[in-house]
């Protein structure tokens, strides 16, 4: 019953007026940051860090945590409305979410994203409270070999989520992997494919490429002749704001499954949350009776990944709270916030700082509640935004994106690169290549390469580690079977397609 006592203590801390206010500010700022394209969580938390100097440590961390998971809610908004994923975790949401918006169902898509996130957030919070300590073992069981295999699995997910040719999807992943190689090599520090451009020394930013191939490319494509008709149609088609009973029924199982997947994968530091959303999408597509609906506005394709990424955002706090090791850049900033207050988190942080840990866990639940209260009414406003004529909307999106990308590093070169990637993305659309696998390849590429090299360094060049370590072997086996399951029907479908076309 310790847990109930601890949770009660946590709620007592979190319900103090100042902490409630901090939680609200965090949720609001997080939503804003998530909605604005380009401006990422890392940059915002970094900017707000100095403000937390003057706050009590618990309040400061509650606020920073609120920004982190609040951005997960907000991030889905731009993905759905304008096809611009602000974070790597909302790339998948853009696939079906934006299609729903094009069919006039932006309201249900946004609402289901919020509801799924809320449910997942609540469950994951309970999970942190009850199973935080034992789950830590999972994070420690993952060595370089396991991570490499996990990344391979993640890339296979990207193949599965492609709606067109499997070959093209794989090519896009590899293209993404190549793009991720640009910049300094982690092991030797050598500059790779950077052409002596200082801004490229640390590689291409996710925001830069995502804004380019998703945001700018979409705008350029929409300006094509003949595209106006479709757009006007969208504006007339906008129907109900809230999901129907059928939507809710359809979404319930994906939300449950997404929550489970996200909760587990979120614990793994580095890439866990991204893979969680892709994994959830893949799972839904594989379980669906009619997988061809995916990529064409299936509500399950929004509900599953959105639940998964929010669950993962919550459980990614586990390594921080139980081991004192930050699993990602945002958490590293939170550790910075703690050290500024003289708390250096470590394995004993739960015993030594019960106020902080349990207060934060309780605040996550409150924060999720606040977020759904903030977000559901906002759905109406967002959908109304879609009624703005496109001739006024697109220059605004261009400006917002440009400012967002510029603000990441204060580097004009990043904005130019995003423009170049906009053209690349336009070209990709014209040749029927999908940008989502490219982005996943780009996000997972460095993790994959680093862990492959690390694993081989530790094993002294022995490739068998990937199959002799049980966890890694299981992951690779899953990846292999998934690939076979995907490629076989795709080959058959390709034949069918050929037949149907020759009949025409």
């Amino acid at each position, binding site marked *: 019953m310790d847990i109930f006592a601890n949770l009660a203590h946590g709620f007592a801390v979190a319900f103090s007026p100042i902490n409630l206010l901090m939680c609200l500010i965090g949720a609001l700022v997080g939503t804003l940051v998530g909605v604005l394209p380009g401006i990422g969580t890392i940059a915002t938390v970094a900017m707000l860090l100095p403000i937390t100097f003057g706050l009590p440590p618990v309040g400061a961390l509650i606020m920073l945590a609120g920004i982190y998971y609040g951005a997960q809610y907000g991030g889905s908004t731009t993905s759905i409305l304008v096809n611009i994923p602000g974070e790597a975790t909302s790339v998948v949401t853009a696939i079906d979410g934006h299609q729903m918006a094009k069919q006039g169902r932006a309201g249900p898509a946004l609402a289901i994203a919020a509801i799924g996130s809320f449910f997942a957030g609540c469950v994951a919070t309970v999970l942190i409270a009850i199973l935080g300590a034992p789950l830590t073992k999972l994070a420690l069981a993952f060595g370089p070999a396991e991570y490499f295999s996990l990344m391979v699995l993640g890339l296979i997910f990207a193949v599965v989520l492609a709606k067109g040719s499997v070959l093209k999807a794989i090519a896009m992943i590899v293209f993404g992997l190549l793009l991720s190689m640009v910049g300094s090599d982690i092991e030797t520090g050598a500059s790779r494919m950077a052409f002596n451009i200082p801004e490229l020394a640390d590689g291409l930013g996710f925001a830069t490429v995502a804004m380019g191939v998703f945001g700018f490319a979409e705008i350029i494509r929409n300006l094509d002749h003949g595209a106006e008709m479709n757009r006007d149609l969208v504006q007339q088609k906008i129907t109900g704001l809230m999901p129907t009973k059928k939507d809710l029924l359809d979404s319930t199982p994906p939300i449950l499954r997404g929550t489970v997947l996200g909760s587990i994968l979120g614990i793994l530091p580095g890439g866990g949350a991204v893979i969680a959303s892709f994994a959830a999408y893949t799972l839904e597509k594989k379980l669906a009776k009619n997988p061809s609906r995916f990529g064409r506005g299936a509500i399950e394709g929004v509900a599953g990944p959105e639940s998964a990424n929010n669950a993962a955002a919550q459980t990614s706090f586990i390594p921080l709270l139980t081991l*004192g090791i930050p699993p990602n850049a945002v958490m590293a*900033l939170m550790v910075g916030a703690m050290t500024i207050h003289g708390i250096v988190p470590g394995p004993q942080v739960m015993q030594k700082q019960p106020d902080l840990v349990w207060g934060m866990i309780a605040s996550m639940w409150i924060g999720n509640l606040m977020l759904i209260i903030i977000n559901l009414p906002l759905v109406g406003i967002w959908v109304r935004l879609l009624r703005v004529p496109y001739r006024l909307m697109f220059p605004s999106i261009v400006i917002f994106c440009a400012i967002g990308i510029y603000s990441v590093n204060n580097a004009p070169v990043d904005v130019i690169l995003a423009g170049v990637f906009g053209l690349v993305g336009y070209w990709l659309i014209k040749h029927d290549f999908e940008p989502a696998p490219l982005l996943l390849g780009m996000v997972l590429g460095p993790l994959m390469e680093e862990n492959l090299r690390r694993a081989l360094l530790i094993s002294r060049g022995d490739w068998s580690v990937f199959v002799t370590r049980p966890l890694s072997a299981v992951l690779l086996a899953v990846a292999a079977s998934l690939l076979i399951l995907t490629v076989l029907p795709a080959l058959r479908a390709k034949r069918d397609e050929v037949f149907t076309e020759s009949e025409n």
Partner: protein
Amino acid sequence: MTFIRALAGACAAALASLGAFVAPVEAQTYPTRSITMIVPFAAGGPTDVVARIVTSHMAQTLGQSIIIENVVGAGGTTATTRAARAANDGYTLITGHMGTHAASVPLYPKLAYHPEKDFEPIALLAGTPILILARKDFPPKDLKEFVTYVKANAEKVNAAHAGVGSVSHVSCELLHSILDIKPVGVPFNGTGPAMNALVAGQVDYMCDQIVNAVPQINAGTIKAYAIATPERNPSLPNVPTTAEAGLPKFQAQAWNAIFAPKGTSPAIVASLNAAAVKALDDETVRKRLLELGSVIPSPAERTPESLAALVKGEIAKWTPVLKPAT
């Protein structure tokens, strides 16, 4: 002779007092707007925390806000290059560290700046001791055993580090050059993942700054063999110094210091130095730095001249260690 020396001393004292008299006048006129402090690492990292603690006090002294700008990339050299090219009007400063202003010289042959030629040293802020850490079930019990074990098993052991050019990388290179071994170095993307791997037992040992290590050592998830400073650290009273444990040659500290672009006027340097020195004498600043395990420089170490000497000495120290590594 003694007379001349006394006269020279008196002149120097007079000049110094004149300078001290001029400095506050300058200080009133000099910071007329906010100052940008470039921190070459991500917010929340050890350098950033030190910079924020000290500059928040300096801002009070100077009467202008100091805005911290975190510019990350290429082991901090991106930011340092930008600072070297900034206007030398005293409104752009940088909190450099051992990596950006010493180890970068041998590490990056195409470095776009030189720590000595392109910067005016202002003041040393803090030193962060470096520890030799190992996974908790690593066989050696103390530093002597560690040295023999690592030398005997140089082919088998793995040393973790947080990326090329990081403090953990260069300090381990120093250790390896002293022991004359070349074990496999496993790079991680930052201290967090490296520490995770050490706690999980995936790698054998690493050299890291005290900040992140103290709670892990206290919790028994990793062990520490020695601290590479002349004195023991109050936050880890049980960890012997390298001298006590039998490896006196291994001395390493990650230091943080403020620099201004070359050509910044001496009056501005003096007023910034005075503000930094005042901050280091402040009780709350000291308390916070000590909580981080930092070593606060003695008054003699806080002058621009001693910082210049430190930079010179550090470059000389790291160049032979790191040159063959790249």
